[in-house]
């Protein structure tokens, strides 16, 4: 790990003051100053020398300001400094937003969830081996313009949706898939002190020609929390995660589903995909395929076809397209079958 200067912010105003250090960085994650919360992604990548910030701003004291979960009249507020394990155990999350609970308890390990914050977790970076291993020269995400070693390499864990000729890395997280499905909003503080609100779906960018620019955050932006809108679909919601190991592994494919049913007829549905795509992926096409229809294996399968319609499989990835479809079908049918507390 390269040397860095450690600073500590007591408040979010102090944090953005320290985060506003002069930088020529072209992306939030490439700034020479990085916010330090749980540290579970940052220290991982710093030990690998994939990230080499010169200055860390410890924001753990911001828990006082941004460390709460609150029931709002029209939804749920999740502070950015809430730890994953705290959100997983929260009674409102468990009862009214089970898809968030399911995404959390199946993520990482209990130790990591005790450390990682929600704000940091959604910014977790890809697990693509060629991004993480600096002995490979070619990685457009790590070093723009160097190529993509994954394209012809070991790539069975990477993406089939939203990729480009420059990058086929997948977004690895779980919580973000639930948040994108539920149409959450991200609350930000800019270095100039302005508050901004961003639809969660716009937080992560597609790789295109610039896979090193992963989010629409600019250097110094600080996530302060997430608002999850209420809706008749949030209580009947679930997260299905398919992986190589039974626990403590990243998704090969996952689906977050929230359903509003009248009998078996779909009044409204929200579907997010994980493991399969370059960013947390909401599939509006699959949702549209179900609204107003009776939900059964056949209609679920049609929705799944729509969800994966644009998929492109490089190398070892062909299996993921069908795996993704089956994951969507299973998630829809399991969510339909949920028994809700009265």
């Amino acid at each position: 790990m390269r040397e860095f200067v450690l600073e500590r912010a007591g408040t979010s105003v102090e944090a953005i003051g320290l985060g506003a250090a002069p930088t020529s960085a072209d992306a939030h994650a490439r700034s020479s100053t990085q916010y330090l919360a749980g540290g579970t992604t940052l220290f991982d990548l710093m030990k690998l020398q994939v990230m080499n910030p010169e200055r860390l701003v410890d924001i753990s004291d911001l828990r006082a300001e941004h460390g709460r979960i609150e029931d709002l009249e029209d939804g749920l507020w999740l502070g950015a400094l809430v730890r994953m394990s705290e959100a997983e155990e929260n009674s409102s999350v468990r009862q009214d937003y089970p898809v968030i609970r399911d995404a959390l308890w199946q993520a990482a390990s209990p130790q990591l969830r005790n450390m990682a914050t929600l704000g940091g977790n959604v910014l977790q970076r890809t697990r693509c081996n060629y991004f993480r291993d600096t002995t490979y020269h070619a990685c457009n995400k790590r070093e723009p313009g160097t190529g993509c070693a994954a394209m012809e390499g070991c790539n069975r864990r990477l993406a089939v949706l939203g990729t480009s000729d420059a990058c086929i890395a997948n977004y690895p997280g779980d919580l973000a898939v639930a948040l994108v499905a539920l149409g959450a909003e991200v609350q930000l503080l800019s270095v100039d002190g302005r508050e901004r609100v961003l639809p969660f779906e716009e937080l992560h960018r597609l790789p295109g020609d610039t896979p090193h620019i992963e989010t629409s955050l600019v250097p110094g932006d600080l996530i302060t929390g997430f608002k999850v809108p209420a809706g008749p679909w949030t209580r009947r919601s679930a997260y299905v995660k398919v992986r190589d190991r039974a626990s403590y592994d990243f998704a090969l494919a996952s689906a977050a589903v929230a359903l509003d049913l009248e009998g078996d007829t779909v009044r409204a549905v929200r579907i997010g995909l994980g493991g399969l795509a370059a960013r947390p992926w909401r599939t509006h096409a699959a949702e549209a395929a179900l609204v107003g229809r009776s939900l059964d294996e056949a209609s679920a399968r049609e929705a799944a076809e729509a969800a994966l319609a644009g998929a492109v499989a490089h190398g070892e990835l062909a299996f993921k397209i069908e795996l993704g479809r089956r994951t969507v079908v299973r998630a829809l049918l399991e969510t339909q079958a949920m028994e809700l507390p009265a």
Partner: protein
Amino acid sequence: MDITLNVNSHTHQLSVDPRVMLLDALREVLGLTGTKKGCDQGQCGACTVLIDGRRVLSCFTLAARAEGEITTIEGLSGEGEPLHPMQAAFVEQDAYQCGYCTPGQIMSAIACVAEGHATSDDEIREYMSGNLCRCAAYPKIVEAVKQAAPQLAERG
């Protein structure tokens, strides 16, 4: 930088590089080598310690940010005292082979019980999944956690 670490009810003043992780401060500076360095990359759980009762990975925790009461395997029972019930259960159930992951397993298991995540075999397996055992003593580890869980509840 000058820091203070509260470890196993003792206070230590240290001067460390900001890069030093709690794991290395424990092992190399304080001589508490019970906490093990496995992957040093947040994946294996061998370095698990408790901070204010919460299980965390000491390889991803800066020593400079490790505030609160830190408990390591050395803090569970003193010289000449009976073993902590979780330690005793691991011995009685033969829940290890080489023993390298064991301190992390035991610290994690104590927290697993305290969190209320030791109510069934499946739940124990799920909530102990952050501690890898390359000797694959997993069935015995589940038995040890089950044996110790009611005793820990009694201790409060």
